[in-house]
């Protein structure tokens, strides 16, 4: 997903939230120490079930690293990354 990063280097990630009762977009960014391999593995673990029915008025999340974005299901975040995503969620700000 994010090419060229070596193990332990800092990487900027952006969480975007869309959807909801009124469709507003919120974003939060942070820098993390995570390798490409670890990130790729995380994205596989938290990818949404493509067969899952759409939640009416639900919020949807997308993770961006570099120029690449992937939809993510925050309910699937492993314990190791829960604090990171919890912080990102609490930092989400509305963008007009």
């Amino acid at each position, binding site marked *: 997903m994010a090419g060229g990063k070596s193990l332990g280097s800092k990487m900027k990630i952006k969480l975007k939230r869309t*959807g*909801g*009762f*009124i469709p507003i977009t919120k974003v939060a960014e942070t820098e993390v120490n995570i390798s490409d391999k670890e990130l790729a593995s995380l994205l596989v673990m938290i990818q949404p079930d493509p067969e899952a029915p*759409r*939640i*009416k*008025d639900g919020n949807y999340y*997308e993770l961006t690293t570099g120029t690449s974005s992937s939809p993510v299901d925050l*309910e699937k975040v492993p314990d190791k990354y829960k604090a990171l995503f919890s912080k990102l969620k609490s930092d989400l700000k509305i963008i007009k």
Partner: protein
Amino acid sequence: MLTKLMESGNKKIADLAINTNFRSFRFRSDRIFFQQSSLHERTVLGLIAKQTGKETMQMEVYDCKQKTDYINATLLWDSKTNQKITSVAGKNVIKGGMASWDFYWQLFGRNSIDNKGMLIKQYVHYDKGMDNAYWDGRRMVYGDGDGSVFTSFTSDIDVIGHELTHGVTENEANLDYENQAGALNESFSDIFGIMIKQRFNNHDVKKSNWLIGEKVLIGPKYALRSMKAPGTAYVNHPELGTDPQPATMDKYQNLPDNQSGDFGGVHINSGIPNFAFYVAAFNIGGYAWEKAGRIWYAVLTDPKLAQNANFADVKNLTIVHAEKLFGVSSPEVIAVKQGWQEAKV
């Protein structure tokens, strides 16, 4: 015998026979019509509405304690024990859930979300400051709001009615949640949500302000949506900007059918069928749920309403059902046509 009497020289006897023959004809044709009509048709004609049966609402309310875990949520209230609670959000969803169940039961004889007495499950205080409410296919879920832009999403009965109606729609036409079908899905939820609030407050079409979520969005000038004037629910809001909903088809927004595009603008283009309903209901007058509501409910529960229906399909069905319920050239049919005309559909 009756034919002979109708031709009787005695005018009184002949008149009586003609009258009897006419009544008898009406009775026979009514009986044939109702024998041949479907359960859906009998329901929309009000024959099984205003139930006198003993069905009662089944509801449970859970407190998520600001976590995102349904399994460990604690039971706050249930309709079996009807215990007293102090949680404001809990009280709000009990009130809204009861008003919604009562609306569907008393007016349409519909027993809960699935018309089979489904247990209504509502979860409050979900997540930390979640500024949203949703229906996930099994339950209604409400956040407390962030406290600065939004307050609790349980604050408005129309929002609760909106979410419950998503469940009703899922059990009826199950409209796709994308593009025009998705906008209709949203619109049915707004339409029934506003009528549930209007009925709860005893507001007719003139007294209602036709605003959805007027308490949820903080500030006296703001609401989440306006059915009377889509695009004006919030204007120049410091955080949200201006309400993006169009009121007419020429302003339809072709957005991408993905997460970022609100799946083709389901919450945006719903302003168009919302506006059509508002104009129709307003022009009919009185209480929206008495006539316009019956027409739109007949459409929502009509097996002919396809999962991928578009605005024109619903327009045509509302006209068909208005004609069936109120007569081909009735003021109600004219009002429905005016509604769609004003929305430029």
